[in-house]
């Protein structure tokens, strides 16, 4: 067993490395190739992939459907937006909008956002803490399922109303503009800065993906799945699901905050619209279309749907709501595991089988699915035989 045939090793490694090569190549090439407007869109949608990862974590793995991720998304955006508002000011000056409402001194909660270090942490710690607290209050009482969804939606509305109504504190419905601000002396809205932000986004998406992967692959991830499938059972095994749910909801909140901050600087504004009720449900559908319970699906879903949305809204704005509504229906009734799940379960093969060629199978299907045969087969594979048995499709 010591020496594998070298061809096999390289082909396997290649398969593992190839996606990363593609990603790195894309990250280097795209900023050069794409016009700034498209690159900016891509960067924005990628940053939405991070909030989608968080939703996948809590919904796809843990079974809690939050309709209020917009809260944490917007909190992250506001944290960065407030910093950028203050950063460009001369000492003693106030952000412009305060003048409109007759506010003479900076409200106390703005003060810490003078500090870049504080802001750096505030972007993800504040949303995580708010999520943790909200989650704890709900989970502690064993409120779950649709009740949890409804309460998160109500919380979202509360935050929306609050931010929308407080002109004197946070500029209300107008939000905070960021594209005229400077980071390290560079205009945020400039093309060069946007390119840098694109790379930052790519790095953070990859980082978030690794974080989620680490959380979901080990025993912790097993516990999350166990909570989703049979929470009371887990309790009787000595686990406290409240702790797990609070932790994972806080992580998702933190991810949403990072996502919101990245989205804010790339779209040039943060406003209460980030907390609009439909937007938070839209986030869920990105994950559903991509494939819940698969991390890559969350990112792909966010990219795919948002690109579709921007294309369709440019061409035929009236039809977008029909298409979006149809997507909700389609994914729930026909594609419960999303595109990635469908792909992994051999969906394309089944589609081909429908029009003609039967699926390839090395042996009798029943034999192919037998675990003992599979165990033997994998041993056989490990010894180096070239085999391409289609093991997908096993439920």
């Amino acid at each position, binding site marked *: 067993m010591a020496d594998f045939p070298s061809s096999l090793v390289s082909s396997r490694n290649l398969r593992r490395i190839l996606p990363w090569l593609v990603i790195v190549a894309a990250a280097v090439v795209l900023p050069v190739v794409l016009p700034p407007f498209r690159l900016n869109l891509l960067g924005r949608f990628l940053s939405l992939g991070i909030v989608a990862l968080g939703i996948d974590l809590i919904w796809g793995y843990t079974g809690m459907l939050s309709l209020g991720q917009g809260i944490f998304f917007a909190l992250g955006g506001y944290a960065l937006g407030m910093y950028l508002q203050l950063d460009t000011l001369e000492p003693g000056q106030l952000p412009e909008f305060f003048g409109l409402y007759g506010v003479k001194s900076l409200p106390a909660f703005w003060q810490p956002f003078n500090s870049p270090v504080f802001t750096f942490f505030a972007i993800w710690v504040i949303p995580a803490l708010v999520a943790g607290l909200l989650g704890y209050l709900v989970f502690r009482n064993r409120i779950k399922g649709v009740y949890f969804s409804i309460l998160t939606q109500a919380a979202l509305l509360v935050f929306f109303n609050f931010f929308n109504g407080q002109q004197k504190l946070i500029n209300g419905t107008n939000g905070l503009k960021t594209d005229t601000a400077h980071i390290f002396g560079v205009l945020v809205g400039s093309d060069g800065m946007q390119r840098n932000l694109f790379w930052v986004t790519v790095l953070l998406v990859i980082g978030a993906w690794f974080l989620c992967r680490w*959380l979901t692959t*080990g*025993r*912790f991830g*097993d*516990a999350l*799945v*166990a909570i*989703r*499938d*049979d929470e*009371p*059972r*887990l*309790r*009787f*095994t*000595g*686990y*406290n*699901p409240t*702790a*797990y749910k609070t*932790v994972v909801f806080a992580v998702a909140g933190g991810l949403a905050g990072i996502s919101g901050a990245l989205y804010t600087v790339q779209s040039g504004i943060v406003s209460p619209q980030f907390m609009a009720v439909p937007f938070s449900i839209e986030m869920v559908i990105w994950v559903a279309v991509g494939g819940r319970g698969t991390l890559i699906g969350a990112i792909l879903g966010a990219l795919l749907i948002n690109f579709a949305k921007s294309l369709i809204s440019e061409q035929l704005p009236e039809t977008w709501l029909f298409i979006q509504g149809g997507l909700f229906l389609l994914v729930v009734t026909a594609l419960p595991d999303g595109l990635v799940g469908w792909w992994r379960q051999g969906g394309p093969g089944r589609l081909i089988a429908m029009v003609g060629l039967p699926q390839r199978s090395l042996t009798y299907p029943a034999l192919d699915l037998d*675990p*003992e045969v599979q*165990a033997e087969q994998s041993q056989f594979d490990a010894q180096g035989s070239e085999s391409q048995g289609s093991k997908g499709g096993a*439920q």
Partner: protein
Amino acid sequence: MNLLELRGVSVSFDGFLALNDLNLQLAPGELRAVIGPNGAGKTTFLDVITGKVKPTKGDVFFRGKSLVGQSEHRISRLGIGRKFQTPRVYQNLSPRRNLELAVRGPHSPFDLLFSPLSSEQRDRVQHLLGVVGLESHAGQQAGGLSHGQKQWLEIAMLVAQDPELLLVDEPVAGLTDEETERTGELLRQLAGDHTVLVIEHDMDFIRDLQAPVTVLHEGHVLCEGSMEQVQNDPRVIEVYLGSETQEAP
């Protein structure tokens, strides 16, 4: 001292008394069978011990400490494990991962994230997979196992927890004769080191356990004794067969 003691426990659901002044003691190391006709309150009885249902009246003591008002996971950590009537395994996890979740050890989120399983825990999981004959299925999703395999997996999970007190609800429902026999053997082996309480409908199985029997009826202990004594008790015959019939079962 008794390991487990229920004192005058009553549970009322909207006026319906599922348990009615129930008293029961279990000594350490004992193997006890509990039988009773449908609706006798057997499952509620387990619910009260494991903290799922709060008693309306009365108290439950485990090693002399009251369990009432404690949450399920705390009670479980005190050393009380439970197997459910219909097998409840985590369908989307493999048997190995089911057992790795159940295996005794710290259970906080941070433990699961930062401390991997010790080699002893790993060995224990591997050993148990062998005991219940699921080695070749160890990597497959548990949802695809047969009913009997799920029953056994759940028993293995219970053993993996290594609780002092095992509450086993209908362990042999839906098993073949051979499997039933092996389950009985396993439970008898566990008794001694552990205290085992078995709820079962299968009278032959209980007879083979050779354990003292407690008969529940309408939420109340009807009588206790060996299987022989219980079977000949006229009250038991009455609740099982109705008052008209006088024949022994």
